[in-house]
Protein backbone atom coordinates (compact mmCIF):
# COMPACT_ATOMS: atom_id res chain seq x y z
CA UNK A 1 0.00 0.00 0.00
CA UNK A 2 2.76 2.40 1.00
CA UNK A 3 4.67 1.58 -2.17
CA UNK A 4 1.58 2.26 -4.30
CA UNK A 5 0.91 5.63 -2.64
CA UNK A 6 4.56 6.59 -3.08
CA UNK A 7 4.33 5.58 -6.73
CA UNK A 8 1.27 7.80 -7.22
CA UNK A 9 3.15 10.62 -5.57
CA UNK A 10 6.14 10.11 -7.89
CA UNK A 11 3.87 10.05 -10.95
CA UNK A 12 2.25 13.29 -9.84
CA UNK A 13 5.72 14.86 -9.61
CA UNK A 14 6.44 13.78 -13.19
CA UNK A 15 3.13 15.34 -14.29
CA UNK A 16 4.08 18.49 -12.39
CA UNK A 17 7.16 18.90 -14.58
CA UNK A 18 5.29 17.80 -17.68
CA UNK A 19 2.73 20.58 -17.09
CA UNK A 20 5.44 23.18 -17.55
CA UNK A 21 5.59 22.48 -21.27
CA UNK A 22 3.04 25.26 -21.73
CA UNK A 23 1.97 28.22 -19.57
CA UNK A 24 -1.67 27.12 -19.82
CA UNK A 25 -1.06 23.66 -18.37
CA UNK A 26 1.60 24.82 -15.91
CA UNK A 27 -0.70 25.79 -13.07
CA UNK A 28 -2.34 22.38 -13.12
CA UNK A 29 1.16 20.93 -13.00
CA UNK A 30 1.95 22.86 -9.87
CA UNK A 31 -1.24 21.52 -8.28
CA UNK A 32 -0.21 17.96 -9.21
CA UNK A 33 3.08 18.62 -7.45
CA UNK A 34 1.32 19.85 -4.32
CA UNK A 35 -1.03 16.83 -4.27
CA UNK A 36 1.95 14.52 -4.77
CA UNK A 37 3.71 16.08 -1.81
CA UNK A 38 0.63 15.85 0.42
CA UNK A 39 0.26 12.16 -0.45
CA UNK A 40 3.95 11.55 0.28
CA UNK A 41 3.81 13.29 3.67
CA UNK A 42 0.57 11.65 4.83
CA UNK A 43 1.66 8.22 3.66
CA UNK A 44 4.80 8.56 5.75
CA UNK A 45 2.83 9.78 8.76
CA UNK A 46 0.79 6.55 8.58
CA UNK A 47 3.90 4.43 9.27
CA UNK A 48 3.60 2.45 12.48
CA UNK A 49 6.89 3.79 13.78
CA UNK A 50 5.77 7.38 13.35
CA UNK A 51 4.10 8.41 16.59
CA UNK A 52 5.13 11.93 17.48
CA UNK A 53 2.50 13.74 15.46
CA UNK A 54 2.60 16.89 17.57
CA UNK A 55 6.30 17.47 17.19
CA UNK A 56 6.22 16.72 13.47
CA UNK A 57 3.11 18.84 12.99
CA UNK A 58 4.75 21.73 14.82
CA UNK A 59 7.91 21.37 12.74
CA UNK A 60 5.90 21.42 9.50
CA UNK A 61 3.96 24.48 10.70
CA UNK A 62 7.11 26.37 11.66
CA UNK A 63 8.87 25.54 8.39
CA UNK A 64 5.71 26.12 6.38
CA UNK A 65 5.12 29.51 7.96
CA UNK A 66 8.68 30.64 7.29
CA UNK A 67 8.58 29.34 3.71
CA UNK A 68 5.20 30.90 2.97
CA UNK A 69 6.19 34.21 4.48
CA UNK A 70 9.34 34.40 2.37
CA UNK A 71 7.66 33.18 -0.82
CA UNK A 72 4.83 35.70 -0.56
CA UNK A 73 7.04 38.64 0.35
CA UNK A 74 9.88 38.15 -2.12
CA UNK A 75 10.32 40.58 -5.02
CA UNK A 76 10.42 38.83 -8.37
CA UNK A 77 13.76 40.48 -9.13
CA UNK A 78 15.21 38.65 -6.12
CA UNK A 79 14.12 35.22 -7.36
CA UNK A 80 17.63 33.94 -8.12
CA UNK A 81 18.73 34.59 -4.52
CA UNK A 82 15.60 32.95 -3.20
CA UNK A 83 16.13 29.84 -5.30
CA UNK A 84 19.77 29.64 -4.19
CA UNK A 85 18.68 29.96 -0.55
CA UNK A 86 16.09 27.23 -0.99
CA UNK A 87 18.67 24.92 -2.58
CA UNK A 88 20.90 25.37 0.45
CA UNK A 89 18.04 24.18 2.67
CA UNK A 90 17.52 21.03 0.60
CA UNK A 91 21.23 20.30 0.94
CA UNK A 92 21.17 20.89 4.68
CA UNK A 93 18.03 18.80 5.15
CA UNK A 94 19.75 15.95 3.29
CA UNK A 95 22.70 16.17 5.71
CA UNK A 96 20.37 16.07 8.71
CA UNK A 97 18.40 13.11 7.38
CA UNK A 98 21.63 11.23 6.70
CA UNK A 99 22.85 12.09 10.22
CA UNK A 100 19.55 10.92 11.69
CA UNK A 101 19.83 7.64 9.79
CA UNK A 102 23.38 7.23 11.05
CA UNK A 103 22.42 7.81 14.70
CA UNK A 104 19.23 5.72 14.59
CA UNK A 105 19.61 3.14 11.80
CA UNK A 106 16.90 0.96 13.34
CA UNK A 107 14.21 3.53 12.52
CA UNK A 108 15.18 3.19 8.86
CA UNK A 109 15.79 -0.58 9.04
CA UNK A 110 19.33 -0.31 7.72
CA UNK A 111 21.02 -2.11 10.63
CA UNK A 112 22.03 -1.26 14.18
CA UNK A 113 24.28 1.44 15.61
CA UNK A 114 27.86 0.38 14.97
CA UNK A 115 26.86 -2.30 12.47
CA UNK A 116 25.06 -0.48 9.70
CA UNK A 117 25.03 -2.24 6.34
CA UNK A 118 28.01 -1.31 4.18
CA UNK A 119 25.87 -0.34 1.18
CA UNK A 120 23.79 1.96 3.37
CA UNK A 121 26.93 3.57 4.77
CA UNK A 122 28.26 4.29 1.30
CA UNK A 123 24.95 5.73 0.13
CA UNK A 124 24.56 7.70 3.33
CA UNK A 125 27.98 9.30 3.06
CA UNK A 126 27.51 10.13 -0.62
CA UNK A 127 24.16 11.75 0.22
CA UNK A 128 25.84 13.70 3.01
CA UNK A 129 28.70 14.77 0.78
CA UNK A 130 26.44 16.07 -2.01
CA UNK A 131 24.04 17.61 0.49
CA UNK A 132 26.80 19.51 2.28
CA UNK A 133 28.30 20.77 -1.00
CA UNK A 134 24.85 21.91 -2.12
CA UNK A 135 24.39 23.69 1.18
CA UNK A 136 27.60 25.71 1.25
CA UNK A 137 27.72 26.29 -2.52
CA UNK A 138 24.18 27.67 -2.42
CA UNK A 139 24.89 29.86 0.57
CA UNK A 140 27.82 31.41 -1.29
CA UNK A 141 25.77 31.74 -4.51
CA UNK A 142 23.07 33.43 -2.44
CA UNK A 143 25.62 35.88 -1.06
CA UNK A 144 26.94 36.68 -4.52
CA UNK A 145 23.46 37.15 -5.97
CA UNK A 146 22.29 39.22 -3.04
CA UNK A 147 25.39 41.37 -3.28
CA UNK A 148 26.55 40.67 0.27
CA UNK A 149 29.62 39.03 -1.25
CA UNK A 150 31.32 40.50 -4.30
CA UNK A 151 30.14 38.86 -7.49
CA UNK A 152 33.65 38.99 -8.84
CA UNK A 153 35.37 35.67 -9.26
CA UNK A 154 37.97 35.02 -6.58
CA UNK A 155 40.89 33.17 -8.07
CA UNK A 156 44.04 32.01 -6.36
CA UNK A 157 46.96 29.79 -7.14
CA UNK A 158 46.58 26.00 -7.21
CA UNK A 159 42.83 26.45 -6.75
CA UNK A 160 41.83 23.45 -8.83
CA UNK A 161 44.62 21.33 -7.40
CA UNK A 162 43.43 22.13 -3.88
CA UNK A 163 39.84 21.26 -4.81
CA UNK A 164 40.96 17.98 -6.34
CA UNK A 165 42.97 17.12 -3.23
CA UNK A 166 40.01 17.91 -0.98
CA UNK A 167 37.84 15.69 -3.16
CA UNK A 168 40.33 12.83 -2.78
CA UNK A 169 40.41 13.46 0.96
CA UNK A 170 36.62 13.11 1.06
CA UNK A 171 36.76 9.79 -0.80
CA UNK A 172 39.38 8.61 1.69
CA UNK A 173 37.19 9.74 4.59
CA UNK A 174 34.18 7.92 3.14
CA UNK A 175 36.18 4.69 2.93
CA UNK A 176 37.33 5.19 6.51
CA UNK A 177 33.77 5.92 7.61
CA UNK A 178 32.45 2.75 5.99
CA UNK A 179 35.11 0.72 7.80
CA UNK A 180 34.84 2.11 11.34
CA UNK A 181 31.45 3.92 11.35
CA UNK A 182 32.80 6.66 13.59
CA UNK A 183 30.65 9.74 14.24
CA UNK A 184 33.79 11.88 14.23
CA UNK A 185 34.54 10.85 10.67
CA UNK A 186 30.92 11.41 9.66
CA UNK A 187 31.07 15.02 10.84
CA UNK A 188 34.51 15.46 9.31
CA UNK A 189 33.00 14.48 5.96
CA UNK A 190 30.28 17.08 6.52
CA UNK A 191 32.74 19.85 7.36
CA UNK A 192 35.19 19.09 4.56
CA UNK A 193 32.33 18.87 2.05
CA UNK A 194 31.03 22.24 3.21
CA UNK A 195 34.48 23.66 2.65
CA UNK A 196 34.63 22.14 -0.83
CA UNK A 197 31.22 23.65 -1.68
CA UNK A 198 32.55 27.12 -0.86
CA UNK A 199 35.74 26.60 -2.82
CA UNK A 200 33.88 25.34 -5.89
CA UNK A 201 31.62 28.39 -6.15
CA UNK A 202 34.16 31.05 -5.11
CA UNK A 203 35.90 31.40 -8.51
CA UNK A 204 32.64 31.72 -10.44
CA UNK A 205 31.63 35.24 -11.48
CA UNK A 206 28.25 36.96 -11.26
CA UNK A 207 27.28 36.55 -14.90
CA UNK A 208 27.89 32.81 -14.70
CA UNK A 209 25.37 32.52 -11.90
CA UNK A 210 22.61 31.06 -14.12
CA UNK A 211 24.83 28.02 -14.60
CA UNK A 212 25.73 27.81 -10.91
CA UNK A 213 22.13 28.10 -9.77
CA UNK A 214 21.12 25.37 -12.23
CA UNK A 215 24.02 23.20 -11.12
CA UNK A 216 23.10 23.53 -7.46
CA UNK A 217 19.53 22.69 -8.44
CA UNK A 218 20.91 19.52 -9.96
CA UNK A 219 23.04 18.73 -6.88
CA UNK A 220 20.05 19.11 -4.56
CA UNK A 221 18.35 16.43 -6.66
CA UNK A 222 21.31 14.06 -6.49
CA UNK A 223 21.48 14.62 -2.72
CA UNK A 224 17.83 13.54 -2.45
CA UNK A 225 18.73 10.52 -4.59
CA UNK A 226 21.58 9.59 -2.26
CA UNK A 227 19.20 9.68 0.69
CA UNK A 228 16.69 7.68 -1.36
CA UNK A 229 19.25 4.91 -1.86
CA UNK A 230 20.13 4.98 1.85
CA UNK A 231 16.50 4.49 2.81
CA UNK A 232 15.73 2.23 -0.19
CA UNK A 233 12.91 4.61 -0.97
CA UNK A 234 11.89 4.70 -4.64
CA UNK A 235 9.94 7.93 -4.28
CA UNK A 236 13.08 9.76 -3.16
CA UNK A 237 15.16 8.11 -5.88
CA UNK A 238 12.69 9.03 -8.64
CA UNK A 239 12.18 12.59 -7.46
CA UNK A 240 15.89 13.12 -6.90
CA UNK A 241 16.64 11.85 -10.39
CA UNK A 242 14.00 14.12 -11.92
CA UNK A 243 15.40 17.16 -10.15
CA UNK A 244 18.98 16.15 -10.86
CA UNK A 245 18.23 15.71 -14.57
CA UNK A 246 16.35 18.99 -14.66
CA UNK A 247 19.21 20.96 -13.14
CA UNK A 248 21.74 19.25 -15.37
CA UNK A 249 19.78 20.09 -18.52
CA UNK A 250 19.34 23.70 -17.42
CA UNK A 251 23.09 23.97 -16.74
CA UNK A 252 23.74 22.57 -20.21
CA UNK A 253 21.35 25.03 -21.87
CA UNK A 254 22.89 27.94 -19.96
CA UNK A 255 26.49 27.05 -20.79
CA UNK A 256 25.53 26.54 -24.41
CA UNK A 257 24.00 30.03 -24.32
CA UNK A 258 27.49 31.30 -23.54
CA UNK A 259 29.30 28.90 -25.86
CA UNK A 260 31.25 27.50 -22.94
CA UNK A 261 31.45 24.03 -21.53
CA UNK A 262 30.10 23.41 -18.06
CA UNK A 263 33.63 22.45 -17.04
CA UNK A 264 34.86 25.85 -18.19
CA UNK A 265 32.22 27.63 -16.13
CA UNK A 266 32.92 25.49 -13.08
CA UNK A 267 36.64 26.13 -13.30
CA UNK A 268 35.62 29.76 -13.08
CA UNK A 269 37.60 32.96 -13.17
CA UNK A 270 35.63 34.32 -16.11
CA UNK A 271 34.76 38.01 -16.25
CA UNK A 272 35.39 40.76 -13.76
CA UNK A 273 38.86 41.55 -15.04
CA UNK A 274 39.07 44.56 -17.30
CA UNK A 275 40.28 43.83 -20.79
CA UNK A 276 42.34 46.99 -21.07
CA UNK A 277 43.67 46.38 -24.56
CA UNK A 278 40.20 46.26 -26.05
CA UNK A 279 38.86 49.30 -24.28
CA UNK A 280 41.88 51.42 -25.17
CA UNK A 281 41.28 50.84 -28.87
CA UNK A 282 37.93 52.51 -28.67
CA UNK A 283 38.74 55.41 -26.38
CA UNK A 284 38.92 57.92 -29.23
CA UNK A 285 35.81 56.69 -31.00
CA UNK A 286 32.69 58.79 -30.97
CA UNK A 287 29.58 57.71 -29.17
CA UNK A 288 26.26 59.15 -30.21
CA UNK A 289 24.30 60.10 -27.13
CA UNK A 290 20.60 60.68 -26.97
CA UNK A 291 17.91 61.43 -24.46
CA UNK A 292 14.43 60.09 -23.79
CA UNK A 293 12.85 62.43 -26.33
CA UNK A 294 15.14 61.23 -29.10
CA UNK A 295 14.34 57.64 -28.23
CA UNK A 296 10.61 58.36 -28.19
CA UNK A 297 10.87 60.05 -31.58
CA UNK A 298 12.85 57.20 -33.14
CA UNK A 299 10.47 54.53 -31.89
CA UNK A 300 7.30 56.46 -32.69
CA UNK A 301 8.35 56.62 -36.33
CA UNK A 302 9.16 52.92 -36.59
CA UNK A 303 6.97 50.03 -37.72
CA UNK A 304 8.57 47.47 -35.53
CA UNK A 305 10.51 47.48 -32.27
CA UNK A 306 12.27 44.57 -30.60
CA UNK A 307 13.07 45.03 -26.93
CA UNK A 308 16.11 43.18 -25.59
CA UNK A 309 16.07 43.10 -21.78
CA UNK A 310 19.02 42.08 -19.63
CA UNK A 311 20.09 41.93 -16.01
CA UNK A 312 20.20 45.75 -15.89
CA UNK A 313 16.44 45.83 -16.32
CA UNK A 314 16.05 43.57 -13.28
CA UNK A 315 18.42 45.67 -11.17
CA UNK A 316 16.57 48.87 -12.03
CA UNK A 317 13.14 47.18 -11.63
CA UNK A 318 12.31 48.70 -15.00
CA UNK A 319 9.95 45.98 -16.24
CA UNK A 320 6.71 47.85 -15.42
CA UNK A 321 7.81 51.12 -16.98
CA UNK A 322 9.09 49.15 -19.96
CA UNK A 323 5.75 47.41 -20.46
CA UNK A 324 4.00 50.79 -20.27
CA UNK A 325 6.30 52.05 -23.01
CA UNK A 326 5.52 48.96 -25.07
CA UNK A 327 1.78 49.47 -24.60
CA UNK A 328 1.90 53.04 -25.90
CA UNK A 329 3.92 51.94 -28.91
CA UNK A 330 1.44 49.16 -29.62
CA UNK A 331 -1.42 51.64 -29.49
CA UNK A 332 0.42 53.62 -32.15
CA UNK A 333 0.24 50.53 -34.31
CA UNK A 334 3.87 49.58 -33.87
CA UNK A 335 4.77 45.93 -33.61
CA UNK A 336 6.49 45.38 -30.25
CA UNK A 337 8.21 42.15 -29.32
CA UNK A 338 10.70 41.04 -26.71
CA UNK A 339 13.82 38.99 -27.40
CA UNK A 340 15.24 36.88 -24.58
CA UNK A 341 18.77 35.54 -24.64
CA UNK A 342 19.13 32.20 -22.82
CA UNK A 343 21.57 33.64 -20.27
CA UNK A 344 19.91 37.02 -19.76
CA UNK A 345 19.51 37.64 -16.05
CA UNK A 346 20.78 35.59 -13.14
CA UNK A 347 18.76 32.41 -13.49
CA UNK A 348 17.14 30.47 -16.33
CA UNK A 349 13.92 32.17 -17.42
CA UNK A 350 14.55 35.18 -15.15
CA UNK A 351 13.56 37.77 -17.78
CA UNK A 352 10.41 35.87 -18.75
CA UNK A 353 9.16 35.97 -15.17
CA UNK A 354 9.89 39.67 -14.78
CA UNK A 355 8.10 40.50 -18.02
CA UNK A 356 5.21 38.27 -16.99
CA UNK A 357 5.10 40.13 -13.68
CA UNK A 358 4.72 43.38 -15.63
CA UNK A 359 1.84 41.81 -17.58
CA UNK A 360 3.64 41.47 -20.88
CA UNK A 361 1.71 38.79 -22.83
CA UNK A 362 3.97 35.75 -23.22
CA UNK A 363 3.17 35.50 -26.92
CA UNK A 364 5.21 38.68 -27.39
CA UNK A 365 8.21 37.27 -25.55
CA UNK A 366 10.39 35.22 -27.87
CA UNK A 367 13.53 33.13 -27.47
CA UNK A 368 16.73 33.73 -29.38
CA UNK A 369 16.06 31.06 -32.04
CA UNK A 370 12.53 32.29 -32.63
CA UNK A 371 13.31 35.95 -33.18
CA UNK A 372 16.89 36.26 -34.33
CA UNK A 373 16.08 36.11 -38.04
CA UNK A 374 13.61 39.00 -37.62
CA UNK A 375 16.20 41.62 -36.69
CA UNK A 376 17.09 42.55 -40.30
CA UNK A 377 13.41 43.37 -40.87
CA UNK A 378 13.18 45.37 -37.68
CA UNK A 379 13.56 49.12 -37.50
CA UNK A 380 14.51 49.65 -33.88
CA UNK A 381 16.16 47.40 -31.33
CA UNK A 382 15.73 48.71 -27.81
CA UNK A 383 18.42 47.14 -25.63
CA UNK A 384 17.80 47.67 -21.94
CA UNK A 385 20.37 46.52 -19.42
CA UNK A 386 21.92 43.95 -21.74
CA UNK A 387 25.36 44.16 -23.31
CA UNK A 388 27.42 41.04 -23.95
CA UNK A 389 24.49 39.16 -25.46
CA UNK A 390 24.33 41.71 -28.30
CA UNK A 391 28.06 42.09 -28.90
CA UNK A 392 28.98 41.30 -32.53
CA UNK A 393 32.53 40.53 -31.38
CA UNK A 394 31.14 37.11 -30.45
CA UNK A 395 30.92 36.44 -34.18
CA UNK A 396 33.87 38.32 -35.61
CA UNK A 397 36.63 38.61 -33.05
CA UNK A 398 38.28 35.27 -32.46
CA UNK A 399 40.40 36.65 -29.64
CA UNK A 400 37.36 37.81 -27.71
CA UNK A 401 36.50 35.84 -24.58
CA UNK A 402 32.91 35.71 -25.75
CA UNK A 403 33.76 34.49 -29.25
CA UNK A 404 31.31 31.85 -30.44
CA UNK A 405 28.59 32.80 -28.00
CA UNK A 406 25.21 32.96 -29.72
CA UNK A 407 24.07 36.60 -29.75
CA UNK A 408 20.93 38.52 -30.54
CA UNK A 409 21.57 40.19 -33.90
CA UNK A 410 20.46 43.67 -32.88
CA UNK A 411 23.21 45.06 -35.13
CA UNK A 412 21.16 43.99 -38.15
CA UNK A 413 18.21 46.21 -37.27
CA UNK A 414 18.10 49.69 -38.76
CA UNK A 415 18.83 51.47 -35.53
CA UNK A 416 19.79 50.43 -32.05
CA UNK A 417 18.95 52.17 -28.79
CA UNK A 418 21.09 51.19 -25.82
CA UNK A 419 19.86 52.01 -22.33
CA UNK A 420 22.90 51.82 -20.07
CA UNK A 421 24.10 53.43 -16.92
CA UNK A 422 27.55 54.13 -18.29
CA UNK A 423 30.01 53.03 -20.91
CA UNK A 424 31.26 50.26 -18.63
CA UNK A 425 31.90 46.91 -20.20
CA UNK A 426 29.65 43.91 -19.60
CA UNK A 427 30.53 41.05 -17.29
CA UNK A 428 32.83 39.53 -19.85
CA UNK A 429 34.92 42.71 -19.58
CA UNK A 430 34.70 43.13 -23.35
CA UNK A 431 33.97 46.44 -25.02
CA UNK A 432 30.97 46.44 -27.36
CA UNK A 433 31.71 47.93 -30.78
CA UNK A 434 28.00 48.44 -31.35
CA UNK A 435 28.18 51.49 -29.08
CA UNK A 436 30.27 53.33 -31.68
CA UNK A 437 28.19 52.59 -34.75
CA UNK A 438 26.40 55.37 -36.63
CA UNK A 439 22.98 53.86 -36.19
CA UNK A 440 23.41 53.37 -32.46
CA UNK A 441 22.13 55.87 -29.93
CA UNK A 442 23.23 55.53 -26.34
CA UNK A 443 20.71 56.44 -23.68
CA UNK A 444 22.64 56.91 -20.46
CA UNK A 445 20.79 56.67 -17.19
CA UNK A 446 18.81 54.43 -14.91
CA UNK A 447 16.75 51.97 -16.96
CA UNK A 448 13.53 52.61 -15.07
CA UNK A 449 13.88 56.39 -15.16
CA UNK A 450 14.67 56.25 -18.88
CA UNK A 451 11.57 54.18 -19.65
CA UNK A 452 9.39 56.53 -17.61
CA UNK A 453 10.82 59.53 -19.44
CA UNK A 454 10.25 57.88 -22.79
CA UNK A 455 6.65 57.17 -21.76
CA UNK A 456 6.24 60.85 -20.90
CA UNK A 457 7.64 61.95 -24.24
CA UNK A 458 5.50 59.45 -26.10
CA UNK A 459 2.30 60.55 -24.45
CA UNK A 460 3.15 64.25 -24.74
Amino acid sequence: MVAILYLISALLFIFALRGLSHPESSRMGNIFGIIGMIIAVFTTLMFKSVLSYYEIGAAILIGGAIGSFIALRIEMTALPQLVAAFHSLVGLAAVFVAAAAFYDPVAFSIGKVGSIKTASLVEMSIGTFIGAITFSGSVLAFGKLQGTISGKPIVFKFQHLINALIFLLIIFLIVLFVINQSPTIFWTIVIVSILLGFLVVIPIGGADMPVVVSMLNSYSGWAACGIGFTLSNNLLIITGALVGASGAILSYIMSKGMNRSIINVVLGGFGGEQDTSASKDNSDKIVKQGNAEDAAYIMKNADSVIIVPGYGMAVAQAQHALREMGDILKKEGIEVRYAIHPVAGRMPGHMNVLLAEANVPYEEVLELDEINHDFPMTEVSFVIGANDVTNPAAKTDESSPIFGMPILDVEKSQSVLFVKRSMATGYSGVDNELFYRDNTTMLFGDAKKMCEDIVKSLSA
Partner: protein
Amino acid sequence: MEAHSSEVFVIGLTVFFLACIIGYYVVWSVTPALHSPLMGVTNAISSVIIVGAILAAGPQGFDTSKIFGLIGVVLASVNIFGGFLVTYRMLSMFKKKTKKTKEKE
Protein backbone atom coordinates in the same frame (compact mmCIF):
# COMPACT_ATOMS: atom_id res chain seq x y z
CA MET B 1 17.53 -9.55 4.87
CA GLU B 2 21.26 -9.26 4.25
CA ALA B 3 21.07 -11.53 1.22
CA HIS B 4 18.47 -9.28 -0.34
CA SER B 5 20.31 -6.03 0.14
CA SER B 6 22.17 -6.22 -3.16
CA GLU B 7 18.92 -7.01 -4.92
CA VAL B 8 17.28 -3.99 -3.30
CA PHE B 9 20.18 -1.87 -4.49
CA VAL B 10 19.83 -3.11 -8.07
CA ILE B 11 16.10 -2.36 -8.02
CA GLY B 12 16.90 1.12 -6.71
CA LEU B 13 19.47 1.57 -9.47
CA THR B 14 16.94 0.46 -12.10
CA VAL B 15 14.42 2.94 -10.81
CA PHE B 16 17.11 5.61 -10.73
CA PHE B 17 18.16 5.23 -14.36
CA LEU B 18 14.59 4.99 -15.65
CA ALA B 19 13.71 8.13 -13.68
CA CYS B 20 16.73 9.94 -15.16
CA ILE B 21 15.52 9.06 -18.65
CA ILE B 22 11.99 10.24 -17.88
CA GLY B 23 13.43 13.40 -16.36
CA TYR B 24 15.54 13.99 -19.45
CA TYR B 25 12.57 13.89 -21.82
CA VAL B 26 10.14 15.72 -19.55
CA VAL B 27 12.55 18.57 -18.85
CA TRP B 28 13.46 19.07 -22.51
CA SER B 29 9.76 19.53 -23.21
CA VAL B 30 9.58 22.42 -20.74
CA THR B 31 9.26 25.72 -22.58
CA PRO B 32 12.28 28.01 -21.94
CA ALA B 33 9.92 30.77 -20.80
CA LEU B 34 9.04 28.62 -17.79
CA HIS B 35 12.57 27.70 -16.72
CA SER B 36 12.30 29.80 -13.55
CA PRO B 37 9.05 28.11 -12.44
CA LEU B 38 10.75 24.80 -13.30
CA MET B 39 13.43 25.59 -10.75
CA GLY B 40 10.74 26.53 -8.24
CA VAL B 41 8.89 23.25 -8.70
CA THR B 42 11.99 21.06 -8.70
CA ASN B 43 13.12 22.82 -5.56
CA ALA B 44 9.81 22.08 -3.89
CA ILE B 45 9.65 18.44 -4.93
CA SER B 46 13.27 17.73 -4.05
CA SER B 47 12.18 18.50 -0.50
CA VAL B 48 10.41 15.15 -0.58
CA ILE B 49 13.36 14.16 1.62
CA ILE B 50 10.93 15.29 4.30
CA VAL B 51 9.84 11.65 4.11
CA GLY B 52 13.18 10.59 5.57
CA ALA B 53 13.07 13.38 8.12
CA ILE B 54 9.60 12.32 9.32
CA LEU B 55 10.79 8.72 9.76
CA ALA B 56 13.67 9.97 11.88
CA ALA B 57 11.40 12.26 13.92
CA GLY B 58 8.74 9.56 14.26
CA PRO B 59 9.66 7.58 17.41
CA GLN B 60 8.54 8.89 20.77
CA GLY B 61 11.02 10.32 23.27
CA PHE B 62 13.95 12.53 22.44
CA ASP B 63 17.29 11.43 21.10
CA THR B 64 19.87 12.84 18.70
CA SER B 65 18.28 11.20 15.71
CA LYS B 66 14.87 12.64 16.48
CA ILE B 67 16.25 16.15 16.84
CA PHE B 68 18.01 15.84 13.50
CA GLY B 69 14.80 14.52 12.01
CA LEU B 70 12.76 17.44 13.32
CA ILE B 71 15.32 19.95 12.02
CA GLY B 72 15.08 18.15 8.67
CA VAL B 73 11.29 18.43 8.74
CA VAL B 74 11.48 22.19 9.41
CA LEU B 75 14.04 22.79 6.64
CA ALA B 76 12.16 20.69 4.10
CA SER B 77 8.86 22.36 5.02
CA VAL B 78 10.33 25.79 4.36
CA ASN B 79 11.17 24.57 0.89
CA ILE B 80 7.95 22.75 0.20
CA PHE B 81 5.72 25.68 1.13
CA GLY B 82 8.12 28.28 -0.22
CA GLY B 83 8.83 26.40 -3.44
CA PHE B 84 5.24 25.67 -4.37
CA LEU B 85 4.03 29.13 -3.35
CA VAL B 86 6.68 31.02 -5.26
CA THR B 87 6.01 28.82 -8.30
CA TYR B 88 2.31 29.53 -7.92
CA ARG B 89 3.06 33.25 -7.85
CA MET B 90 5.22 33.03 -10.97
CA LEU B 91 2.71 30.93 -12.88
CA SER B 92 -0.24 33.14 -12.00
CA MET B 93 1.66 36.00 -13.61
CA PHE B 94 1.82 34.03 -16.82
CA LYS B 95 -1.93 33.63 -16.55
CA LYS B 96 -3.03 37.13 -15.66
CA LYS B 97 -1.68 38.82 -18.70
CA THR B 98 -3.07 36.36 -21.28
CA LYS B 99 -6.50 36.95 -19.84
CA LYS B 100 -5.98 40.66 -19.92
CA THR B 101 -4.88 40.66 -23.54
CA LYS B 102 -7.85 38.58 -24.46
CA GLU B 103 -10.08 41.09 -22.71
CA LYS B 104 -8.38 43.89 -24.56
CA GLU B 105 -8.99 42.19 -27.85
